[in-house]
């Protein structure tokens, strides 16, 4: 290929023109491909993100007890199946006050279990433990369990879902870590 540096040759101009046209078509095709791939994080179009979801009648959570509840993720695709079911712990403090905890341990996200015998949430992975009110008791977690906002309406317990607090997003803001010694 002889593309002289002094004077643009006919062949060189056609080569550049061809590259330009091919690049334009390629770019045109790349736009929908990229938008398709990034579709899951285009949140504003998804109804249900940050929605109030019912956990069932208030009577199913007796006063003074902590019960497991499950709800469906409102941001869901039909093929998600059981992976769109999310469990949480509901604590009825005194019949009026509630606490709804995300089931995930604040350490690395394992599902914690409630042990009424010892009045503790315990994590099976690394031995994290929490008191009945969700505050940290012992183990590797740096903070208490994550709580979800709730409201009582028409005899049903609703929680706000969609914006799951995670250790990476929230813990780093709310917990001031001691600098590494």
């Amino acid at each position, binding site marked *: 290929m002889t593309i002289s540096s002094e004077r643009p040759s006919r062949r060189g101009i056609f080569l550049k023109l061809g590259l330009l046209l091919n690049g334009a078509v390629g770019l045109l095709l790349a736009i929908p*491909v990229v938008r*398709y791939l990034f579709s899951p994080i285009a949140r504003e179009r998804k109804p249900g993100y940050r929605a109030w979801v019912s956990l069932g009648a208030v009577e199913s959570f007796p006063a003074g007890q902590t019960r497991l509840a499950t709800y469906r993720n409102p941001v869901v695709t*039909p093929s998600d199946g059981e992976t769109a079911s999310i469990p949480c712990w509901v604590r009825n403090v005194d019949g009026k006050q509630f606490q709804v905890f995300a089931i995930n341990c604040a350490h690395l996200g394992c599902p914690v279990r409630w042990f009424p015998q010892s009045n503790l949430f315990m994590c099976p992975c690394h031995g994290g433990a929490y008191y009945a009110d969700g505050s940290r008791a012992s183990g590797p977690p740096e903070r208490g369990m994550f709580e979800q906002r709730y409201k009582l309406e028409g005899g049903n317990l609703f929680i706000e879902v969609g914006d799951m607090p995670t250790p990476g997003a929230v813990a780093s803001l709310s917990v001031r870590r001691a600098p590494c010694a």
Partner: protein
Amino acid sequence: MRLMGRMGRWFDQRLQLGKPMMETLAHPVPRETASWFYVFGSAALTVFALQVVTGILLAILYVPSAAEAWNSLQNLNHQVTAGWFIRALHGWGSNFMIAIVLIHMVQVFLFGAYKFPGS
């Protein structure tokens, strides 16, 4: 622009693709072959590449089960950004690929392009 040139030179030094590509492009061919009859081979390759890319994209979301297939297509067509476009591209591409490959085969056969110098 100078940075782009330097990056291009670095990649070329590592990949060694520029020279063979230029040799292929500048390879002398008979004057008669500068004709629209010869575009169908590269057209078939382009459409095939398009089919591979869109096919992989669709396979990410399509659920090939009797219970979920229709629902996953509804989601693909109406919820996913540009999903309908990718699906249409794949559907039309399949038809066009058959047509272009057939034309390409006829062209190769009639022109005797499978014979010696081009074989």
